[in-house]
C-alpha cells in the first residue's frame, strides 16, 4: 500500500507550554479585576483611608520590589546555565532566585505585622490585604515550584525531553514580577491623591 499517512500522534510534551501560557493569560485577568476594583474604590470612595491611618510607608516595600524584580533577571541567568548544560551553575543561581523570593515574602510579613489597620478596615484595608495577599500566595507558589524544579534537576535523565518545566516556572516568576510592579505603582506610588 502506498499510503501517505502521516503519523498522527503529535507528542504531548509540546503542548504543555502552550497550555501553561494560556493559563497565565487567564490568571492575569483575576489580577486585572482586582486592580480595576482597587482603582474604582480609590476614585469613588467617600472615605478612603481608615481613621488614624496616614498612608503607607514606602521605603521597605521599595527594597522588596528591587529584590523581587532583580530575581527575575537572576532566574533568567539560571535558565541560560541550563541551556548551556552547566547543571551546577543552574542549581546555584536558581537557588539564589528562590532565596530572593523568600526574602520578599519575609519583607511582606514584616510589613504586614507592622501595620495598624486590618482586613476589615474599610475598602482600603480590604483591597490592600487582598491584593498583596493574593500576590504573596503566587510568590509562595512560585518558590514551591522552583523548589520542585530544583529537586527534579537531581533526577537522572530529567532533561532528556527538554527543560519545559523550568521554562514554565521561570515564565511564572516573570509574571508574578510584572504583577508586583503594577501593584506597587497602584498601592504605594499612587498614594498622593
Amino acid at each position, binding site marked *: 500500500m502506498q499510503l501517505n499517512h502521516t503519523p498522527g500522534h503529535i507528542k504531548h510534551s509540546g503542548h504543555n507550554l502552550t497550555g501553561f501560557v494560556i493559563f497565565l493569560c487567564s490568571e492575569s485577568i483575576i489580577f486585572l479585576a482586582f486592580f480595576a476594583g482597587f482603582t474604582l474604590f480609590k476614585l*469613588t*470612595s*467617600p*472615605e478612603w483611608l481608615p481613621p488614624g491611618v496616614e498612608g503607607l510607608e514606602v521605603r521597605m516595600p521599595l527594597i522588596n520590589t528591587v529584590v523581587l524584580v532583580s530575581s527575575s533577571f537572576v532566574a533568567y541567568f539560571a535558565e541560560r546555565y541550563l541551556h548551556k548544560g552547566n547543571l551546577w551553575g543552574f542549581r546555584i543561581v536558581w537557588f539564589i532566585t528562590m532565596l530572593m523570593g523568600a526574602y520578599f515574602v519575609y519583607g511582606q510579613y514584616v510589613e504586614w505585622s507592622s501595620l495598624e489597620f486590618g482586613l476589615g478596615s474599610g475598602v482600603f484595608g480590604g483591597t490592600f490585604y487582598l491584593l498583596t495577599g493574593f500576590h504573596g500566595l503566587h510568590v509562595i507558589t512560585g518558590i514551591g515550584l522552583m523548589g520542585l524544579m530544583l529537586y527534579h534537576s537531581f533526577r537522572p535523565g530529567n532533561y532528556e525531553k527538554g527543560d519545559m518545566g523550568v521554562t514554565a516556572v521561570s515564565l511564572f516568576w516573570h509574571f508574578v514580577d510584572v504583577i508586583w510592579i503594577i501593584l506597587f505603582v497602584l498601592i504605594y506610588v499612587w498614594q498622593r491623591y
Partner: protein
Amino acid sequence: MTTTTNNKSPNVGAIVIIAVAVALNLVLAVLMARWSYSWFPPQASSAAPYVDDLFALETGIGSFLWFGLTGVIGWTLLFNRAPKYDESYGEPIEGNNRLEITWTVIPTVIVFAIAIYSMQVNDKLDALGPKQKYALGTDPATVAAVDPRATVGPIDVIARQWSWEFIYPDGVRSSELHLPINQRVNFRLISEDVNHSFYVPAFRLKQDIIPGSVISYSLTPTREGRFRLRDAMFSGAYFSQNQTDVIVESDEAYSSWLKATAKQPLQPGLSPGSDLYAKRLANGDKGWATVPPAPAPLVNDPGDASIPHDA
C-alpha cells in the same frame, strides 16, 4: 430560486410569489405593531407613550424578521423535503458574497436606526438624575442634588426590607405615594439595607435603589388613578410583597390630601412583610433563614392595601 436557471431569464412566477409574500409579511408586521399597544398597562406618565411607540416599532421590525424567516423555513419544509429513501444531495451552493454583504449591511442599518431612535426616546424620558454616594449613617438629604425643573418634590422614597415610605418636603409621611397630575416630580431614592427598585409599570419607569447612594429621579404622571408600585430588584424573603400604590390625582385633591394628612398623628404604615413574618413565627418559624423585617415605618397616612388598583 427554486429553479437553477433564474440567473438568465427572470422567473416571473418566483418574483410574484416573493412580492406577495413580502407584502403579506409587511401587513402582518404592521398588525402586530398596532396590536402591541394593547399589551401594556395604561399610559400614566409622560414617558409611557414614547416607550410604547418604540416598542411598537421594534415589534413591527421583529415580526417582519421572524415571520419572514420562519416563512422561508416553512417553505423549505413544504417543498424541499426529500422523498423517503432518497439519498441524493441538494444543489451544492457554497455561498454568495453579494448576499452576505446584503445581510450584513441591512441588519447593521436597522439596529443602528433603532439605537439612534432609542437614544432620542431616552432623552425624552429624562428621568435619571445624578447618583451620589454618601456614608451610610449620615443624613442623605444633605448630598442629593435637586432637579431644578421639577415643580413637586423632592419626595424622599425610602425602601426597606419590606416596606415603602414616602416623605414629602413639608415632612408629611405616607405609605402610599400621592402625586399631582401633570407636574414634574422629583424623588430622592434611598435604601438603608439592600438593593430595591422603584418600578411603576403604568409609568414605564424603573430605577434601582442602591444603599450608600442617593439617586435623583424625576417623572411626570399624566393620568389619574391608582397604580401599582412594585419593588423590582430582588430584596429577600418577602420581596414579592414589597408593593404599594401610587395615587395620581388632581392638583386640588393632592393639596387637600397633603393638608389633611399633615394633621394625622404618626402611626405604623403598610409593612406586608411584618405581617407575614409574624404569621411565620406563630406557625413555628418553619422555612429557611431570613433577616427579620424592618419595623413598620411611622407615617401620617398608613394607606389601605385592600383598595383595588387600576393597573
